[in-house]
């Protein structure tokens, strides 16, 4: 058990390191895209450690407690995440729903802490984040339903194994419409443009994070990196056949994150109700059609 937990912590740490590096690399890529030099690839590490080293403020116990709960929830979620078919802390307990709902604990903690800061922009940001979540989560869950139904398991390792079995395609190919929905939902999850309404620095002063500085903000950055890791690896495992070894995982992970980031960088930002309308119009429709096709008609490529 202890070993498993240590493996889990290792995965969480790995996820943090991985996403922070890839995040930095992506900043560089975006810089190059904009004909800039761009920051160093380890810039994100510097940012986080700088924030942790500063002396921030506290708005009372819930402000601190929320951050701890948020980071704790996210770390816990990451500990369940399989990296490959074999590298997983808790075999057969890596249930898909854990990732969706344990992630929510983290989100709830963060939202609580943000609202606890007493800043209206924080609450507005939380409101937008939750609204966006309402938008992207449902189509994504419908696609996940299709995947679970088709692969007959909700364990992520089992879903990976299913895709890696000879004769089965990756789900992004097997369920093309679902794959499309998955990409869109992933962008929503990651808060990438055009769905980044809840950060909106110029509009609501970075939303939930408006009051954070110092170590609390540093912890939120860690939280953000790990949650991106969780979301992207979830996509990798669900749609891209997972990974049989760690290099494949790295390649897939890097590709997914970079592609999403590139797409996001050529987009503007939706209004909040546009986000909701968008997700409930096309992705949901596609997801339902995909589910019908896959479950009732059995047409899985």
């Amino acid at each position: 058990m202890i070993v498993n937990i240590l493996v889990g912590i290792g995965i969480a740490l790995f996820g943090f390191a991985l996403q922070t590096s890839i995040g930095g690399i992506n900043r560089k890529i975006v810089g190059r895209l904009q004909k800039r030099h761009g920051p160093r690839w380890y810039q994100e590490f510097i940012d986080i450690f700088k924030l942790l080293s500063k002396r921030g403020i506290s708005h009372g116990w819930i402000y601190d407690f929320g951050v701890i709960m948020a980071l704790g929830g996210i770390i816990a979620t990451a500990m369940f995440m399989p990296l490959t078919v074999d590298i997983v802390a808790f075999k057969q307990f890596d249930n898909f729903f854990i990732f969706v709902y344990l992630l929510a604990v983290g989100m709830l903690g963060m939202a609580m802490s943000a609202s606890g800061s007493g800043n209206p922009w924080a609450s507005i940001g939380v409101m937008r984040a939750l609204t966006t979540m309402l938008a992207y989560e449902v189509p994504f869950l419908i696609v996940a339903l299709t995947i679970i139904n088709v692969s007959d398991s909700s364990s992520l390792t089992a879903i990976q194994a299913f895709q890696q079995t000879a004769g089965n395609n990756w789900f992004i190919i097997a369920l093309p419409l679902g794959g499309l929905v998955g990409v869109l939902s992933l962008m929503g999850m990651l808060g990438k443009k055009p769905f980044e309404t809840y950060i909106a620095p110029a509009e609501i002063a970075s939303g939930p994070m408006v009051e954070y500085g110092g170590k609390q903000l540093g912890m939120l950055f860690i939280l953000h990196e790990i949650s991106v890791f969780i979301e992207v690896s979830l996509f990798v495992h669900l749609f891209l056949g997972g990974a049989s070894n760690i290099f494949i995982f790295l390649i897939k992970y890097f590709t997914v994150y970079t592609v999403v980031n590139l797409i996001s960088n050529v987009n503007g930002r939706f209004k909040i109700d546009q986000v909701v309308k968008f997700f409930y119009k096309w992705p949901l429709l596609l997801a339902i059609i995909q589910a019908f096709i896959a479950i009732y008609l059995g047409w899985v490529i």
Partner: protein
Amino acid sequence: MANIEYLLLFLVGSAVISYFLTRLNSFIGSIFTIFATMFVFVSLAAYGFNMNLDTTVSLLPWFSFSQTYLGFFFVIIIAFIYLMVSFFHPYFLDKYPYKNSYNLLFLLSLAGIIGAFYTDHFLQLFFFFEMIIWTTMFLIPQGKSREAAVSYFGFSLTGSVALLIGIFVIYQNVGRFDIQAGLAGISGTTSVFVFVLFMIAALAKLGTFPLHIWLPLAHGNAPHPFSPVLSGALVKLGAFIGILALIKINPIGPVIGAIDLALGQYIIAFIGSLSIVFGTLMAIKEDDAKKLLAYSSMSHGGYILVAFSALNGFAFAGGLYHILAHALASAGAFMAIAAVARATGTTKMKELGGMIHKMPITYLAYLIAIISMAGIPPMGGFISKWLIFQAVIDRGMILIAVAVFFGSVGSFLYVFRPLAALFLGQEFREYKHVKEAPLLMLIPTFIIMGLNIYTGVIPKQIIDFINNIIGENTAFAPVVATTFTVTATYGTLNAGLIALIFGVGVAIAFIIFILMKKSRKVELMDTYTAANFVHDEHLLHYSVDFYAPLERMYEKQSHWMKKFYDALAHKVKEVGKLAKYLFMSNNIGVTLIWILVIIVLLIGVVAL
């Protein structure tokens, strides 16, 4: 005293005693009520779990009782909620106009509930149902609104009338009022008919779409300590009827091939999912914290319906688990709101803020309750939702799944709103004097907190008991569970592990937090305002129209159902006026015409 009859008589007797004690002194009367409720709960818990209650009848010869696991499951939950709520009475009763009768009616309604779940006779079931309705109906108007009681009574009565008609249809076909025999004895079109009638009753009691109007009204306006009972306990009566209809009657009808489910069940699941969506959207929009929770009850009622109509062992277990989890969660949430309302005198979110600084324990109780309500681990709501999801996915009910997932995500939105607007945010100056709830009120708060976590971490005992119910009432396979895990179609959920890992994560986060430099403590008002000086904390509190961008999208549609029922009442009134005009005319001639019409009609009909 483990005889149901004695328990009932004891409750009725203590109801009368409590009336006089409360008349003497409301505190003493309420303490007496606590002990009476506790006695009943303890007796039930001590003997009921193993079906050791004595069901013989000696003093009430026209009643007959039998015990079932299903009935006990409901009874113990409801009695527990009653017990928890009774701790609130000493602090609330003095505010109510007819406080003397409060404890009386409270205990009487508990007697009704115990009777309802232990009887094996349909007419007695109806007897106890009606008793519950009218006793509780007189409790509700002691709160804020009389209309609420009327609408509660109207819808409940509609439900019980449907139930009664169903009972008589059964009686006509079977010739007996015995519940088990009656449910088993019907078939064919009759069973469809009874199914529909029972489902109307279930929908009305459960407060699900389209019979949900009473729910926010009653929950929102009931006396504060009674709202937890309504939401945690009384709506579950509908679930009980739902089980009778969906599982026991289970009429044979056309089957939808793709999902291998009878059409009737699918329709109910669809109604349940409508209820989920409707409840979620309305809860998101609601400003009154209690009404918001009421709409959440509506959406959870939808979950329960979906679970029971999926006709699957996991779903059934999930539904029952959800009943327990939601009872605990909503009781916890309503009790927290009640504690706040006691301190501040309002439940409107736009009038409240920053209560956490004054009432941290109440806040924690609310937090834990909503975590369970939103189905987030490590609370009970997660396990039940997880089981329901398994069943929905297993059946491939896509459209239902859309609603189920929507409600699940939407519940984050609405449960968060009271958290942010009522407990968090700026601390209002008008509530500077407010204190944490008194110790007696914190006792149930702590117990419910503990149970919310218990149900979410150690599912074994509960699942075992549910397996008994499954074995007793259905042919489904029992759910496999070890101390910490539950296994369903698509994998195993280790609730204990999740809680443990969550603890580890929090520990890590806490270590990071504690290692770093200590923060500078600042006032709540010292917050980023783009360098503006704001001195009124109300201006810095974002709570009105919290989800405005989302609400705008369905603002126009949100009143449709209410308008429909208003129009219905209006139409009935108009029919009444027309009838008055036709029959109750001041002109004798009109009566003469009627007499002639009747004569001609009778003779004409007979002559033909």
